[in-house]
């Protein structure tokens, strides 16, 4: 048989179009689809696993209760490879599927920034966990945050360190990505209001193998307390160990990464006695306790914010779609923004005009490897 160029082109075109043709020929599936961008590979792959576990627990619960708009809910996932280009690619793959009604984005602010222009073009709600305050101030109406932002974490870290611990001379250590930089900035601004000063503002690149220079800089600065924004658990654990080895014993109040299960495992005794702000704390509410019990049933690790925000996001999103009574993106958006008093694992969701659902943090204390709930600080603005 002779293969002509035209014949070859037709066959190639048919081959490429076949999946789409088959999908429509077989009819739309009756499930309601939600897309989820998560790290399956790369340095954040562990957090992706926890995030998926949290989302699946919520999904199971929603489906057992009858689903959304009388349809079972299905989660379609794409690997972001823990990189910005990976996140953009993952989101565009999901966005190309017209039957996905809403999405779960990343817990990493820098990846949400990278995806934001595509999210704006797609014009469908995206629930995310990144804590850079700017993300909900970009003028992008489709971004909804399911963790308290770092303007709150900065205020809580500053308040706890400067007032409760009475420490006024701070060393701030933060990663140089969008999350760490904005967190460090938020903490610096908050410290000024408490009359505390910043003796050292030290950024570091993610996936550092050595923190000797950072620890020595802390020692030389004469700081009496450390405030930190670490993006990756292994960086935090290496820093913690070198901090103790080089004899630095001043109090340390960290962003939520200091409280997560993986950091506790890797950092071990080097993290004993530290304080952390955390959106998720098991003892903070009956809903948080309920999530912990459900999570432990299916996962081998302790529950933390990686799983709790996706659990809440699925819960809020499902309730919002039901309330909207439609999969129209604008109606879902309005329903999410109208969500008030939803009690989730992370706290009570009261969405503001910007798309921020939570407005407070818990303070936890590391007592020999166990995170103990101290108090919750809520803000009205």
């Amino acid at each position, binding site marked *: 048989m002779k293969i002509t160029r035209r014949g070859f082109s037709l066959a190639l075109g048919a081959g490429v179009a076949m999946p789409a043709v088959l999908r429509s020929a077989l009819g739309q599936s009756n499930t309601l689809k939600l897309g989820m961008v998560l*790290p*399956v590979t790369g*340095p954040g792959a*562990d957090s992706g*696993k926890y995030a998926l576990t949290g989302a699946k627990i919520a999904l199971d619960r929603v489906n057992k209760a009858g689903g959304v708009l009388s349809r079972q809910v299905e989660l379609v996932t794409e690997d972001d490879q823990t990189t910005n280009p990976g996140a953009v690619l993952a989101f565009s793959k999901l966005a190309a599927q017209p039957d996905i009604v809403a999405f779960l984005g990343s817990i990493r602010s820098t990846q949400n920034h990278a995806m934001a222009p595509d999210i704006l073009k797609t014009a469908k709600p995206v629930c995310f966990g990144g804590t850079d305050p700017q993300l909900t101030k970009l003028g992008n109406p489709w971004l909804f945050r399911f963790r308290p932002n770092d303007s709150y974490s900065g205020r809580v870290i500053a308040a706890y360190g400067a007032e409760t611990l009475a420490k006024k001379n701070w060393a701030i250590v933060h990663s140089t990505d969008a999350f760490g930089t904005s967190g460090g900035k938020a903490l610096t601004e908050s410290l000024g209001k408490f009359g505390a000063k910043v003796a050292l503002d*030290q*950024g570091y690149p993610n996936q550092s193998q050595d923190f000797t220079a950072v620890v020595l*800089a802390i020692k030389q600065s004469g700081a009496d307390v450390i405030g930190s924004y670490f993006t990756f658990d292994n960086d935090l654990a290496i820093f913690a160990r070198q901090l103790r080895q080089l004899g630095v014993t001043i109090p340390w109040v960290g962003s939520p990464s200091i409280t997560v299960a993986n950091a506790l495992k890797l950092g071990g005794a080097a993290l004993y006695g530290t304080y952390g702000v955390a959106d998720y704390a098991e003892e903070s509410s009956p809903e948080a306790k309920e999530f912990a019990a459900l999570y432990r049933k299916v996962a081998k690790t302790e529950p933390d914010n990686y799983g709790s925000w996706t659990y809440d996001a699925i819960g809020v999103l499902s309730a919002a779609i039901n309330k909207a009574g439609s999969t129209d993106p604008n109606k879902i958006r309005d329903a999410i923004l109208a969500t008030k008093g939803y009690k989730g694992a992370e706290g009570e969701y009261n969405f503001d005009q910007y798309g921020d659902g939570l407005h407070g943090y818990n303070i936890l204390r590391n007592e020999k490897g166990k995170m103990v709930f101290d108090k919750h600080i809520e803000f009205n603005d």
Partner: protein
Amino acid sequence: MSFILQLLFTGIGIGAVYALVALGFVLIFRATNVVNFAQGEFSMVAAFLMVVCAVDLELPYWLSFLIALGGMALVGAIFNLGVYYPLRHRTFLPVIISTIGASIFLANTTLAIYGPQPQVLPGWFETPGFQVGPVYLDSQYLLIIAVTVVLVGFQYWFFEHTLIGKKLQATSQDKEMASLLGIPVARMIMITFIYSALIGGIAGILVAPILFVSIQMGSSIALKAFAATIIGGFGDVAGAIIGGLALGIIETFGAAYISVPYKDGFAFFVLILFLIFRPQGIFGERVAEKA
């Protein structure tokens, strides 16, 4: 002064890790004239094997170490048969691409088997370190430095003073001529891959208690080790060691005195300077001179 001494110790420790991985690069380059971009993954696989034996199965540390090394010898042999041998008559480019593919394969296979969570591997010593005057000496870094010194000595003796080492060198310089002289070229290359997997594995096992065991642990070290190999002079054992140590010290001091965020940049800035002004590295000969 204590500040400088502390930085120097850490720089040498980190540099020794780069040097160990760079040794593996050098070995394979000398034998096959190609760069093995999966060298970092050898370190990662060995560290995971240690976690399986020493942590999950709770076997004695020394036994776990021997099993991990046995596993790495097998990985090296399979790597040679699957990644290098089928392409041995091709130019260096397909082989390099093949090693990059193998690196991705090893990383993702480990991810699929073991999952994404970083693991903790206890150190060799009960005491994590000790204070000598104003300087804290991490016992794991001391061990890494000692092992690097021993392996460098062994490698020098092996290549320069043993018949098999000379056969390996002859194979590296001219495979056809070596074959005509009766040297079993395929066997020599097999030995090189096994030895190189073992060295990469030892580096991974030694560094795991400091950097934890994760899928990415190999690639981040290997990139610096590759830079160290170029700085030292590709194919030169002493060059790899000096390049590794220099890189470790430069980035540690650069972080302390210039900028922490640009720490990784210093290593690659030095690399670029070398590529422009001395592409043959510190100890390398110009290609024309070597020919």
